[in-house]
């Protein structure tokens, strides 16, 4: 099997659309609401989750024949927690302002259902390379949704993107105001709902048969 066989590519692209962890499997919603006020935070959070899912999937898959099944959940948790703490420490050291805004949500990546779900469902039963791709794909699927939500929330909530003013001054002079609802977590949920709606009307196969 070549490194990028069609099966492997599917592992990467599936989670971006038909198998998206957030909008199809409805996992990881909590942090998607919390860290999407600003685009920069969403990007850093997305990258952190990609790193954690990819590497913990890889490690668990490499160890899968040596992990005693009776303590496998504990082993998975230890690996995930290690990765998360490492990511958190690195963020604190190099992107301090973002890490302050992400606050507890980096630590809470440990409890992100996407990660444990992929470890248990995929990495425990597949070879390292496909597992790594699966982790990468699922992390990217999550990051993508976060970035879409954050884009709209920051643009309409604060009039900026990545901290730069986007909405022209003239708009404000003409009576335009930033939408305060956009910076409340509830609005993220409504946006997730909208994304699910668009995705389903575009991909008919996602709609349940009556």
């Amino acid at each position, binding site marked *: 099997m070549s490194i990028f066989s069609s099966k492997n590519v599917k592992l990467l692209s599936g989670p971006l659309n038909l198998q998206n962890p957030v909008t199809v499997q409805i996992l990881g919603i909590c942090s998607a609401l919390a860290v999407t*006020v600003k685009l920069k935070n969403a990007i850093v959070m997305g990258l952190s989750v990609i790193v954690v899912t990819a590497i913990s999937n890889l490690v668990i898959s490499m160890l899968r*024949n*040596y*992990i*005693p*099944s*009776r*303590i496998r959940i*504990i*082993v998975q948790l*230890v*690996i995930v927690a*290690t990765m998360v*703490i*490492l990511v958190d*420490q*690195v963020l*604190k*050291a*190099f992107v*301090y*302002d973002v890490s302050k805004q992400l*606050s507890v949500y980096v630590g809470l990546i440990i409890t992100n259902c996407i990660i444990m779900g992929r470890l248990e469902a995929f990495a425990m039963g597949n070879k390292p390379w496909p597992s790594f791709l699966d982790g990468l794909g699922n992390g990217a699927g999550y990051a993508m949704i976060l970035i879409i939500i954050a884009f709209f929330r920051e643009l309409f909530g604060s009039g900026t993107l990545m901290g730069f003013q986007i909405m022209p001054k003239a708009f404000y002079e003409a009576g335009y105001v930033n939408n*305060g609802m956009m*910076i*409340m977590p509830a609005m993220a949920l409504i946006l997730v709902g909208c994304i699910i709606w668009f995705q389903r009307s575009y991909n008919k196969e996602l709609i349940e048969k009556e």
Partner: protein
Amino acid sequence: MKNFSNTYIFIFSAVMVVLVALLLSTAAMNLKPYQDKNIEVEKKQNILASVKISSTPDNAVELYAKYITSSFVVNNNGEKVDGLDAFTLDIKNEQSKPAKERMLPVFIASLENGSNAYVAPLRGKGLWGPIWGYMSFLPDMNTVYGAVFDHQGETPGLGAEIATKSFQQPFEGKQIFENSDQFVSIKVHKGGAKEGDIHGVDAISGGTITSKGLEAMLDSCLILYKPFFIQNRQ
């Protein structure tokens, strides 16, 4: 899946835990200097912001060295205490002591116009967690020169507004003493301070508990500086 013996499980977990511990402690030790540096730079930026000097993480250390010309620690009677570093003094730790024994850091900034500003750190409780800030005073030790506040997790759009310019700016020019030595602090008024009130500012709509917490923070922190302020005013 193979069935492993209990001995194997014990050895497996022990080895795993030791390896993970080694990895994490190495990472923590190597990253600590960078993290400490970030915290220090942030504090310097905050102190500079309270005397209305804006800085970036890159130039904060340089600007701090240029403008903050001295810092020292005073006690509850306004006397200088030797041997303590104002910058590294832990305010949270001091606040767990009885009011009389607390050490109070003072930072002196030399402004562009040649006069000094005196900065006092603040720490208190908001709605969801700690709030803190720095307030600077003119040499009369009464009139506020600038104020900066920050918070850990106040509600975005409501209590979190204390960290914005629009909330902090009105503190400038307010006074904390009435009739020269009666301490009245600065009140945060729900519904808006009266026109010309030199001891009050507007609270935040929808952020009443945070606003009240901030008012309590000003009152409890600044009153301790009263002896120092009264003895040293010019």
